């Protein structure tokens, strides 16, 4: 019991510290691909956040609303993080409905992001959020479908049910759908259309400053870690079986790192797409995968 609680706390702390470090690694890798040196160390993103927290807060008239929503976003993100297994089923992810709850949190976080973007009443961020909403309509719809398929497939609402799941073509397709969802909703190129044009370059965050910006940026990185951690869990949990606990945890973090790197390299390879094209392409891609899932499901392969 005590071991469980202390392990849960330690892993949570690691998951809180890790996201900006992973971002630092990503920046280093991106620099390597561009043949440059890149940031001085992988801690650069942490330095950025620390600096933002030391700066003054300049806000618009709607500052207090922004602050309130940012706090909600932050706490929601942390709550979702609590539910995420890290190779080890912590005391929260063992819950009967942890997977369902986790998904609700993820959807809520996306929604709060949009609220956050309309809060400053800046036309640029409002344009940004409309684009994001358009993409979100496609993305979230298929996330729910994919999630439904997953819940039916694993026959339960908890992360623990993933352990006893076995791989099949259907499962791989569901995994593909959810992995694509994670990619799109982490706002990577070409799906960063909220920020696609120079004048919108800071996208929805244009009016945020100082500690508020720091908090929002940090929440965004944690959200990324959560989404990628979710994909990592989907991949490794059915495979782990009766492995040693420490080995399981290690495997989780390694796969999280690999997924993060794969996603970042993919986003470097892609070019920016047109605002109207991104949701369309995504829709057809998701539709195809969903149809394939249905077919393989009916064929029971």
């Amino acid at each position, binding site marked *: 019991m005590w071991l469980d609680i202390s392990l849960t706390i330690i892993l949570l702390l690691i998951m809180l510290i890790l996201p900006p470090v992973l971002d630092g690694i990503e920046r280093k890798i991106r620099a390597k691909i561009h043949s440059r040196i*890149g*940031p*001085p160390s992988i801690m*650069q993103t942490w*330095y950025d956040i620390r600096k933002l927290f030391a700066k003054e807060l*300049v806000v618009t008239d709607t500052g207090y609303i922004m602050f309130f929503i940012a706090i909600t976003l932050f706490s929601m993100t942390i709550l979702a993080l609590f539910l995420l297994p890290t190779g080890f089923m912590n005391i929260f992810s063992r819950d009967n409905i942890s997977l369902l709850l986790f998904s609700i949190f993820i959807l809520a976080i996306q929604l709060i992001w949009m609220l956050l973007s309309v809060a400053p009443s800046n036309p640029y961020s409002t344009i940004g959020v409309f684009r994001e909403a358009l993409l979100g309509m496609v993305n979230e719809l298929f996330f729910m479908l994919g999630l439904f398929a997953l819940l039916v497939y694993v026959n339960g609402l908890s992360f623990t049910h993933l352990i006893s799941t076995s791989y099949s073509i259907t499962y791989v397709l569901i995994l593909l759908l959810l992995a694509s969802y994670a990619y799109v909703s982490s706002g990577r190129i070409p799906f960063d259309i909220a920020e696609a044009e120079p004048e919108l370059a800071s996208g929805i965050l244009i009016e*945020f400053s100082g500690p508020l910006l720091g908090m929002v940026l940090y929440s965004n990185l944690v959200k990324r870690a959560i989404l990628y951690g979710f994909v990592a869990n989907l991949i490794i949990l059915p495979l782990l079986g009766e492995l040693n606990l420490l080995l399981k945890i290690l495997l989780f973090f390694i796969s999280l790192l690999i997924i993060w790197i794969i996603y970042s390299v993919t986003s470097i390879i892609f070019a920016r797409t047109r605002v109207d094209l991104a949701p369309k392409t995504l829709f057809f891609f998701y539709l195809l995968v969903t149809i394939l899932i249905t077919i393989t499901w009916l064929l029971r392969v």
Partner: protein
Amino acid sequence: MKDNHLKKSIWVFHLNTGSCNGCDIEILDALTPYFDVERFGIKLVASPRHADVVLLTGPITVKTLPMVINALKAVPRPRYVLAIGACAVGGGIWYDTYSVIGGVKEFKKILEEHGVEIDKIVYVPGCPARPEAIIYGVALLLGLVKEKVSKEVVIIGEGSHH
């Protein structure tokens, strides 16, 4: 405020106040992978609210002045300004024309009237300023390198031209 936190992470915002675009192109050059300013933790941001340092080019024309003041107001303190190019440093060839406000000295006065404090200004002369000079200017601003010139000011008689 802890200045040393700024030494490791410097976010810059590019503000053109009516320059001929010569200096702006040099700034863009300084931000390319060739010079790789990310090495020093420098990052270009698109909103003054995210910025630590404002890269100011141009002689600050009368038309751009209100926008310049607004943009500087939006920068959270500590706010630093890097005046890039002869124009920004002292008005350059336009320093006494009708459409500019008359160099940084006047500009500082106007900012004071509006209650906008600038924590530090560093001047990077040149027409246009070289990318190396711009990077050096940022380093100087944050005290990463030592100042090499003394702070003596020589004022040439009013009305005299170059």
